[in-house]
């Protein structure tokens, strides 16, 4: 422990804290801009400058360790002036047309300017406008708004190990972007969107597709249906001023109905279907000497990573389409057949925690008829929230409603798809019972839960112990993939999710996803699972009925034709 003074208040804190951390323990708020929990950026922006008695110049609180006997001032006129000046300089090189920005009232720079009391900028604008990168279906880069904080670079380079984004040039000329300032689709970008999630301003955003959804909702010739991914319901509440991890199942359905959707379905249904197909595929690979370890295929960021950087391990990836795409296919085949609707008149909207799903939906493999995508358009959690705001939906007042049928009855296992380790846990619940022909005693696989980078478990399948692994975040994925390439992988089944924490921490989720927020969303995910009557995918009666009625049996010819896909080396 050590003693110091902050603003003439004596503080006692443990060793090894920065001034910023120590001050926060005493509810002294030092403003920050580039700083972000779990990232490694320090003293880039210098907003957190403080005065330390006896030291020359101002020091950055985020990177200066607090020392015994230090006398720190966080609110002197000198400090406040420095912070204001820095912010004014940033604003002078920023497209500060705030009312025409998606981050309006949800922007860290804007809040900072407000809190510091900036009512006039003494510096004229020096912004040199650059064109936007609009060339991919997932992300938009607007460098006119970039404040060079370095968060996107850090998350891309160190958390995801992709290193597509980097700082280029130097000094006043410094920019952030891919090599040669090329558009993102010329790079091996997985479109995971973690950069968009940590951006403090509107410099990297998802490609907004809300307008086309409004159009379709008001087009009488179109039969619009919507599917919602498991991770969306434990996060969207945050954007509507609710606590982190609020579960909004029923209200979400009801709010969608307010928007004008008539057919509101659950991606959890096709998550259950994925378990049936993927579980059966795993059993088949184990029994018949197929390529092992088998790797999951639900995550489009991971698929992009594998196809671009590790095409030699493609045979390890399950041929199952993701739940989003299984839903799209079923909507345009099974549903169209049963309801006697031309598949061309069905418009499938999906709401995902993910920016890579936007790209996934455009893949040519996912077009059942007439070269029309099975999933027509993908909205992120943030975009759906925007539509609620546009409409003025009051989340507190609306009543809860159940999902529609036939794709509305789901299990606890399916909800787990939102969490890292969830697909693994759901698959093990089913695979264990099918292979061992007896019920699992404890269906909770605690060892594959949580935010740890790589998690392992051992399962008994037909008297044989098999090892499984789960990774979240692409840097951890790299480790597991390199084991396979070296022929040293000890695992039989591997789940990969590109985003830290799994889909609950996806690139399309509400801004400000930190580990605390991830924990809250995870807790809600497991709570939903516990509360479900049915918690195993192979016990979902609607799934069993679907096989009986249309798909024959898991991995049948019909199921393969509709629910499986292939991968190829790209770039």
């Amino acid at each position: 422990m050590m003693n110091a003074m902050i603003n003439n208040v004596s503080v006692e804190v443990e060793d090894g804290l920065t001034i910023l951390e120590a001050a926060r323990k005493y509810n002294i708020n030092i403003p920050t801009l580039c700083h972000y929990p779990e990232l490694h950026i320090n003293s880039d922006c210098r907003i957190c400058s403080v005065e330390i008695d006896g030291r020359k110049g101002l020091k950055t609180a985020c990177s200066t360790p607090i020392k015994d006997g230090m006398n720190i001032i966080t609110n002197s006129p000198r400090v406040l002036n420095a912070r204001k000046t820095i912010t004014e300089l940033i604003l002078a090189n920023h497209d500060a047309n705030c009312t025409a920005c998606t981050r309006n009232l949800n922007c860290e720079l804007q809040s900072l300017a407000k809190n510091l009391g900036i009512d006039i900028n003494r510096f004229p604008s020096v912004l040199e406008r650059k064109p936007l990168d609009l060339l991919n279906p997932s992300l938009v880069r607007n460098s006119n708004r970039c404040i060079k904080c370095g968060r996107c670079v850090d998350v891309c380079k160190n958390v995801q190990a992709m290193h597509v984004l980097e700082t280029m040039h130097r000094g006043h000329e410094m920019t952030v972007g891919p090599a040669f300032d090329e558009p993102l689709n010329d790079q091996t970008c997985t479109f995971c969107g973690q950069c968009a999630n940590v951006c403090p301003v509107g410099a990297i955003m998802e490609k907004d597709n809300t307008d086309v959804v409004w159009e379709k909702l008001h087009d009488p010739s179109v039969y619009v249906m919507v599917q919602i991914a498991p991770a969306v319901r434990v996060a969207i509440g945050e954007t509507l001023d609710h606590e982190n991890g609020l579960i909004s199942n029923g209200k979400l359905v009801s709010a969608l109905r307010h928007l004008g959707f008539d057919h509101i379905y659950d991606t959890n249904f096709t998550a259950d279907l994925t378990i049936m197909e993927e579980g059966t595929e795993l059993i088949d690979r184990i029994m018949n000497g197929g390529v092992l370890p088998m790797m999951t295929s639900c995550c489009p960021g991971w698929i992009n990573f594998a196809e671009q950087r590790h095409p030699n391990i493609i045979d390890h990836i399950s041929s199952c389409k993701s739940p989003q795409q299984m839903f799209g296919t079923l909507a345009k085949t099974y549903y169209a057949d049963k309801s006697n609707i031309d598949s061309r008149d069905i418009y499938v909207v999906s709401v995902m925690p993910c920016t890579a799903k936007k790209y996934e939906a455009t893949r040519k493999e996912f077009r059942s008829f007439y070269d029309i995508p099975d999933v027509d358009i993908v909205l992120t959690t943030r975009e759906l929230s925007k539509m609620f705001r546009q409409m003025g939906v009051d989340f507190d007042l609306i009543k809860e409603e159940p999902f529609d049928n036939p794709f509305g009855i789901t299990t606890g296992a399916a909800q787990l798809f939102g969490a890292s380790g969830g697909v693994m846990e759901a698959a093990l619940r089913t695979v264990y019972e099918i292979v061992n022909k007896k019920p699992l005693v404890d269906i909770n696989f605690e060892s594959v839960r949580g935010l740890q980078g790589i998690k392992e478990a051992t399962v008994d399948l037909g008297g044989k112990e098999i090892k499984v692994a789960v990774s979240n975040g692409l840097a951890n994925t790299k480790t597991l993939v390199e084991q396979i390439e070296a022929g040293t992988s000890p695992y039989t089944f591997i789940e990969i999710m590109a985003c830290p924490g799994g889909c609950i921490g996806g690139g399309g989720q509400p801004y400000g996803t930190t580990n605390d927020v991830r924990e809250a969303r995870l807790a809600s995910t497991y709570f939903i699972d516990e509360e479900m009557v049915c918690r195993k995918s192979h016990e979902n009666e609607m799934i069993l009925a679907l096989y009986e009625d249309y798909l024959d049996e898991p991995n049948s010819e019909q199921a393969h034709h509709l629910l499986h896909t292939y991968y190829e080396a790209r770039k």
Partner: protein
Amino acid sequence: MQIIDVLKKYPASQTSLLEILLEIDRLKDNHYISKEEVHMISEYLGVRTSHVYSVLTFYTLLSTEPRGKHIIQVCKDIPCYVNDAFDVRKTLEKMLNMSVGQTSRDGLFTLEETACIGCCDEAPAMLIDLEPYTNLTRDKIERILASYREVTL
């Protein structure tokens, strides 16, 4: 020498990057690192092109665009500025009929500015390639440029 031969001289580690960039730059008459070369370097070192490009664009002595055979770098730091009675930069711009950042039409010179080159005691000064020229006067600059032109002819 081929680029691949340059690469092979260095261990395939990130720490070789700057030396490789400098050697390729020296090797080429037009003193720049092309996009293809960035890709080759990144593949050889096992680093991303974004990293190579980031380092390449950080240093003013490297370029991503073709430059002249000789790179003239005028010191823009304070001692040279204070001692510069006749405006070295403008003089060069006039004599070469181009502005800073440009390359002469004959491909012989590129004009750039640089931070302090350590010749403050003999300011104003400039570098041509790695050769310092100090105590500059209008006449001296004219003679220097002529000498480079002669050698080339």
